């Protein structure tokens, strides 16, 4: 029963992905209903469940490698969705900054070390991806043991940890730690 939780969560994730991918592709059940074509056909659901069962049986030890089920909490997923808004705002600001540097050619590049002090793999991965997604900063190397990131920065400045990752770290700590 130890792997039961892992099996069920992998199954639900696979089924959810299948249903999203086939959304609105199925035949409608009742032609006159206003939202009829969102409903999946009966055959589609059966195939989805059987494929998800196979996927869950084969890969549950990969998705849930550690016995750690924090991410089953739906509040954390909600926070990830909310996090995309400040991420998008940061991206827009930084994009305009890099656009300015492309036109004027004023750059002062360098590689800095930052210590975000995050403990989980998921947190570090999301932080490194967020940093790379915002222009002007690019994750070059990750030190797994000490949780340090080496970042190529297009315009060097003081206090790199706070400037590059300050708001990201505060957000990521809410759902990944």
């Amino acid at each position: 029963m130890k792997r039961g939780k892992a099996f069920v969560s992998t199954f639900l994730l696979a089924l959810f992905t299948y249903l999203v991918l086939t959304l609105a592709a199925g035949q409608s059940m009742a032609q006159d209903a206003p939202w009829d074509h969102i409903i999946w056909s009966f055959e589609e659901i059966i195939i989805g469940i059987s494929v998800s069962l196979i996927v869950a049986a084969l890969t549950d030890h990969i998705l849930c490698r550690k016995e750690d089920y924090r991410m089953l909490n739906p509040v954390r997923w909600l926070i990830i969705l909310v996090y995309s808004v400040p991420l998008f705002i940061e991206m827009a600001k930084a994009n305009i900054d890099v656009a300015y540097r492309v036109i004027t050619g004023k750059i002062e590049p360098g590689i800095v070390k930052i210590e975000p002090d995050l403990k989980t793999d998921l947190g570090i991965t999301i932080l490194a991806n967020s940093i790379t997604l915002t222009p002007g900063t690019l994750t070059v190397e990750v030190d797994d043991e000490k949780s340090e990131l080496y970042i190529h920065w297009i315009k060097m400045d003081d206090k790199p940890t706070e400037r590059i990752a300050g708001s990201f770290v505060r957000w990521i700590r809410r759902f990944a730690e």
Partner: protein
Amino acid sequence: MTLPMLFIVILLLISLVFNGLGTIGLHRFPDVYTRLHAATKCTTFGTIFITFTVIAYSTRQYILTDEAKFLNMAIHTLIALAALLLTNPTGAHAIARAAHKMGIKPKKAVRDDLEEADLQKKKEVD
């Protein structure tokens, strides 16, 4: 031109501006790292706006014609957007890491912490 169409055209124009700036930056910047900034980030932002354009257009068509294929297109574009946001930084990071491992130094660099860390590690091994 109707108002929703104008909105779609504005979204497409923003994406064109950022994609164009990314291309110009690719030619103007001096070395591989700074070029990665221009080539991957500006074009990501531009491409995000292209996906927004597709979503807005297909939502409009869905409301006008009530055909399921447009809703399908909007949802699949949303999935493509999620895939873009996950794979693009990973690819940029892989190129930058490979470049640094091959020993390419950042040009005009003011400071290089990674270089110092590598040297320190080498000293500890010796």
